[in-house]
């Protein structure tokens, strides 16, 4: 007989429902409007490391190709440009090929935007919400470190200026065997995921901010020396829970990011996807000064309930969906 039973317990169904309720109450209290945006769009995320699922419409002409969103970022920014004010969304999103203990290709994102917030103010709000959702988190032990400080603390290297050779030597001295040649950016990702994240305190939140400019995505880049992206990630222990930005307002810079991502896809032989021109048109009309963040709800549930695998918080995990 085919395996039909849920991958989580009955209790977890209740915990998830309660968490959704707490989230909605949190935003309602702060007068942040709940919105919905389309899951199936004509355009897709150009980020070369995120792959969209795509499907064809009923007429099947090929032109009717649509993409499942990987986050509601573009349409939510169109709403912001249209003057909707503070907004949040609890959205199911899809990312192809991301399966593992902490990854399910279909998952739930909580994404929200706050007008006139700096990304540091938004980090505080994220901390407040996460402590509401995960009562066991030790708030007094929350750490805030720049990306550079986090690398200096754990590895003694400055990630902004270290050469590829220095990073490679560091990877080797950490006893990490890699299977192939990697560029600077990938070596930083290896050191971050294998060493730096593992050094974060277990029962507390860690906020890491000011990332290398080439990891900016659609975050504002501050022209320091070297320039840094005003972006943050939040972790509980070494489990990454979310990712936030001081949002990039300039239309030319937004356009440049999408073009660079598309060009990188071409260079790496990754299928190109149609750019969201409507998003760029909205940026042309003007995105208000704001900060935004996306949190993985399934990860938060995992952390709150001490579950080792994401499948234990999903009604039906990917392999039985």
């Amino acid at each position: 007989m085919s395996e039909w039973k849920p991958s989580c317990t009955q209790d977890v169904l209740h915990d998830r429902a309660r968490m959704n309720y707490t989230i909605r109450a949190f935003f309602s209290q702060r007068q942040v409007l709940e919105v919905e945006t389309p899951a199936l769009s004509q355009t897709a995320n150009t980020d070369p490391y995120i792959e969209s699922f795509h499907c064809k419409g009923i007429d099947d002409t090929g032109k009717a190709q649509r993409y499942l969103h990987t986050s509601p970022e573009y349409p939510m920014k169109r709403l912001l440009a249209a003057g909707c004010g503070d907004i949040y969304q609890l959205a199911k999103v899809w990312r192809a090929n991301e399966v593992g203990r902490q990854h399910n290709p279909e998952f739930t994102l909580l994404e929200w935007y706050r007008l006139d917030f700096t990304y540091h103010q938004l980090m505080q709000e994220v901390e407040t919400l996460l402590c509401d959702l995960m009562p066991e988190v030790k708030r007094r032990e929350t750490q805030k470190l720049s990306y550079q400080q986090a690398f200096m603390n754990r590895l003694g290297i400055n990630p902004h200026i270290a050469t590829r050779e220095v990073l490679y030597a560091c990877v080797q001295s950490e006893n990490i065997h890699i299977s192939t040649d990697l560029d600077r950016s990938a070596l930083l990702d290896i050191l971050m995921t294998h060493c730096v994240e593992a050094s974060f305190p277990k029962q507390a939140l860690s906020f890491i901010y000011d990332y290398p400019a080439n990891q900016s995505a659609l975050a504002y880049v501050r022209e320091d020396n070297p320039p840094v992206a005003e972006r943050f990630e939040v972790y509980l222990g070494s489990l990454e829970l979310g990712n936030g930005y001081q949002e990039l307002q300039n239309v030319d810079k937004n356009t440049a990011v999408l073009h660079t991502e598309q060009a990188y896809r071409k260079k790496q032989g990754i299928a190109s996807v149609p750019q969201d021109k409507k998003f760029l048109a909205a940026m042309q009309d003007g995105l208000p000064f704001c900060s935004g963040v996306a949190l993985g709800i399934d990860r938060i549930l995992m952390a709150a309930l001490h579950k080792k695998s994401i499948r234990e918080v999903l009604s039906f995990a990917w392999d039985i969906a």
Partner: protein
Amino acid sequence: MATYNTNMFRSGLKIIIDGDPFNIVENEFVKPGKGQAFNRTKIKNLKTGRVIDKTWKSGESVEAADVIDVAMEYLYTDGEFWYFMDSSTYEQLPAGETALADCLYWLKEQESYQLILWNGTPISVIPPNFVELQIAQCDPGIRGDTAQGATKPATMTTGATIKVPLFIEANDTLRIDTRTGEYVSRVKT
């Protein structure tokens, strides 16, 4: 040449790296918030038994190893090779000393062993979890001595030396856990 993509990685998959066959023991998909995804694996060299960590760029391909496990019965040795037989086909295969390694201590005729074959050649011989072996030499037994924890050494007919309780006699047959090399019980013969 068959290959596996990192998306297909899972425990038990057999791959080839630098000419050696490996078994994937653990596989974990890791991805930073923005940036590349990786597969962190623990892999075991099937020739040496050594386990190492290796990190792959997700999407990479790796050569598949033609490795299978078979159960075979141990027959005899000519000093250079140890001969095993498939009890359904009666096909015989010689295994070299490297493949046997520590299993030499747990080798007993007519007992069934798990052989790992790579391209048809045995590269590793794994004993059953428990074997029964006879003692070749040990001090005489002390009757009635059941003091907790007191042991003496005993050498088995295969050459393995293990710690046994004091009441064990010189010609007893013992049940031994091959994973730990520890005495389990005396076998009534």
